[in-house]
C-alpha cells in the first residue's frame, strides 16, 4: 500500500513538470513564423514581367534545371534593406539562380534602390498587384524560397537572411540540392 501512497503524492508533481516543459517549449516558439503548406510542392504557377524589360516575361520554366533562390522584397520594406548586403555577398559566392520578386512596389523606386545599393539578382519579376505573392503564401517581406532543380519549394526563410540563418540552414541546403539529379 506504500506504493499507492507514493504514486498519490508524486503524480501531481509529474503532471506539473510536464506542464512546465510544454509551456517552456511554447516560450521558444515564434508565432510569427507560420509554417508554409507549400513546402515540398512545386512553386505555384506564375508569369510576370521583369523589372528592367517589361516585355520579357519570367515563368516557372526559367527556374527549372538549377537550384534557385527567390527573394521577395520591396523598397518600402526596412528589413529588406537590412538583408541586402547579405544578399549581395551570397550572390557573389554561391552558384545559384537568384530571382527577385519585387512585391507591390514602385518600379522606378526599385530601379533606383538597386542602382544605389547594388543588384544581387539575376532576374527580377515585378508583382505590382501582389497576387503572385498571395499564390505563393507570402505574408511579409522579406521572404526567401529555396527551390530545387525540379522547381519544388524545399524551404522558406521568413524574415531577413543573416549570417546565422545562412550558415546553419540555407548554405547546407543549397549544397545538398546542388548534388541532387535534375
Amino acid at each position, binding site marked *: *500500500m506504500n506504493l*499507492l*501512497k507514493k504514486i498519490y503524492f508524486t503524480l501531481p508533481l509529474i503532471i506539473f513538470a510536464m506542464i512546465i516543459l510544454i509551456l517552456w517549449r511554447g516560450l521558444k516558439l515564434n*508565432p*510569427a513564423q*507560420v*509554417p*508554409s*503548406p*507549400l513546402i515540398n510542392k512545386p512553386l*505555384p504557377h506564375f508569369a510576370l514581367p521583369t523589372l528592367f524589360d517589361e516585355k520579357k516575361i519570367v515563368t516557372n520554366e526559367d527556374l527549372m534545371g538549377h537550384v534557385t533562390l527567390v527573394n521577395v522584397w520591396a523598397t518600402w520594406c526596412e528589413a529588406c534593406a537590412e538583408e541586402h548586403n547579405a544578399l549581395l555577398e551570397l550572390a557573389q559566392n554561391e552558384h545559384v539562380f537568384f530571382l527577385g520578386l519585387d512585391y*507591390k512596389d514602385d518600379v522606378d523606386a526599385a530601379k533606383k534602390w538597386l542602382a544605389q545599393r547594388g543588384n544581387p539578382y539575376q532576374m527580377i519579376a515585378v508583382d505590382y498587384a*501582389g*497576387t503572385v505573392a*498571395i*499564390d*505563393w*503564401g507570402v*505574408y*511579409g517581406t522579406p521572404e526567401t524560397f529555396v527551390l530545387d532543380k525540379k522547381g519544388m519549394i524545399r524551404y522558406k526563410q521568413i524574415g531577413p537572411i543573416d549570417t546565422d540563418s545562412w550558415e546553419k540552414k540555407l548554405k547546407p541546403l543549397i549544397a545538398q540540392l546542388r548534388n541532387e539529379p535534375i
Partner: protein
Amino acid sequence: MKKIIIIFILCIPLHLFAADDFYPFETPVEQNRFAALTSQLRCLVCQNQNLAESNAALAVDLRQQIYQHIQQGQSDKQIIDYLVERYGNFILYRPPFVAATWGLWLGPLVFLLVGIVCLLFYIRKTATSTRSNNFEDKV
C-alpha cells in the same frame, strides 16, 4: 437646440456606411457571407486580428480576393480551401480536427475525465473515512 442637433449628428456611426462602399454586394446573403468569412480568418501579419478588422496591406488584399471569389460565385468552402492551400491551417481561427490538433480538441475532455475520476475517488474516500475514522491504516 443647435447643440442637441450637433450631438445627434455626431452620434451617427459613420463606419456603418463605410464598409458597404468598399465591397458592394448585390444580395444581403453575399454580404453576410463576406462578413462571416473575413471574421473567421486570421490576418497573418497582425495575428490577433481577423481579416475583417486588420488594416495590414495583406489583409486588404485578401479581403479583395475573398470579395472577388464571392462575386465569381465560389462557395465558402472553396474560398477557405483557396486560402488554406496558400497559408496553411494557421489562417483559420477554428482549427480543423487533424492529428496535430488532437491535443487541442480532446485535451479539455481528457482533463474533464481526469477531474471526474479524481472527484469520484475523493467522494469514496471521504465516505469511507466518515464511516470509520481509521482511514489512514487502510491506505
